[in-house]
């Protein structure tokens, strides 16, 4: 398998940028856990096995605020529900064999699903998904391990603007998809719903409701008669 599959829309610059961003963010996530007193090996195991920054950070946030471990786990599960929905969204374009999809589920993140979904041909969807999963997960593990080992060398990651890296990466991924009025409507509605619900619903649930504007895909199709 090639690192960048031929004949797909995936570009080398995109792959490197996503790798770099996940590497950097993984370091900062490890630092957060490290300052909360989590032992180095547990941080590394959490990164490898849970494979979700939002889930482990939600746990850390809930318990740091005085919540019980059970409440922390519930918070972690809730924040990662969007990965299930994202996985379901890409599933029809992945392998027909269930075991292959179950294997692929382990690395269901936002960028690899978004970039794989961009392909027109289902065969390329699979190639981009596999390639991007590796481009993302390997730096993710590497960064997390490094962050766990160097501990508190970087005292305040946010002072370096690292909390702006994930959303900036997502903007760069979203932008080329906003070519039609339908896509812009769906994007804007998704963001608006999440913002409207964030203070009302527990973490993660706003993302589930934010998936609903995808239904606009049907309405527009009927109108344009495509």
């Amino acid at each position, binding site marked *: 398998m090639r690192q960048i599959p031929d004949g797909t829309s995936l570009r080398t*610059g*995109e792959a490197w*940028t996503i790798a770099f961003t996940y590497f950097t963010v993984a370091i900062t996530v490890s630092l957060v856990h490290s300052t909360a007193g*989590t032992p180095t090996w*547990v*941080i590394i*195991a959490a990164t490898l096995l*849970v*494979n979700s920054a939002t*889930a482990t950070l939600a*746990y850390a946030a809930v318990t740091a605020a005085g919540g019980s471990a059970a409440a*922390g*786990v519930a918070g972690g*599960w809730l924040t990662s*529900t969007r*990965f*299930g929905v*994202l*996985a*379901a*969204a890409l*599933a*029809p*374009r992945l392998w*027909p064999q269930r075991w292959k*999809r*179950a294997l692929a589920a*382990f690395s*269901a993140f*936002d960028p690899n699903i*978004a970039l794989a*979904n961009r392909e027109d041909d289902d065969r390329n969807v699979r190639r981009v998904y596999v390639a991007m999963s590796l481009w993302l997960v390997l730096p993710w593990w590497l960064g997390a391990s490094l962050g766990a080992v160097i501990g508190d060398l970087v005292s305040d990651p946010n*002072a370096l*603007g690292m*909390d*702006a*890296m994930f*959303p900036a*990466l*997502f*903007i*760069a991924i*979203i*932008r080329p998809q906003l070519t039609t009025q339908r896509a812009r409507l*769906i*994007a804007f509605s*998704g963001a608006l719903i999440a*913002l409207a619900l*964030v*203070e009302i619903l*527990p973490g993660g649930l706003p*993302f589930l409701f*934010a*998936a*609903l*504007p*995808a239904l*606009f*895909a*049907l309405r527009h199709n009927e109108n344009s008669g495509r």
Partner: protein
Amino acid sequence: MLTWGVVAVLAVGVYGQRALGMALINPNRISDRSRQVLAMVPLSILCAVTALQTFSTQGALVVDARVAGLAAAAALSWKRAPMFVVVMVAAAVTAAVRLI
């Protein structure tokens, strides 16, 4: 603080949700209409994640230095700047605003 037990429970729960999403859909038996809707779900959710990571912290709406960084990122994206430039400028602008 994470413990081995918490890591195990989180790992099972998070993988379970991902696998459930993948297994729930049978690619051989899914209508074109469902396909059209599912194809737009990642865009919708990605926008929601971006919005919340820009304007909220731990479940509360917050306007801070990130907004400046992400505004710069949006402007650069519109000008079709390379992804790497977009990410680095967002971090730099956010850091600069925090410094002031």
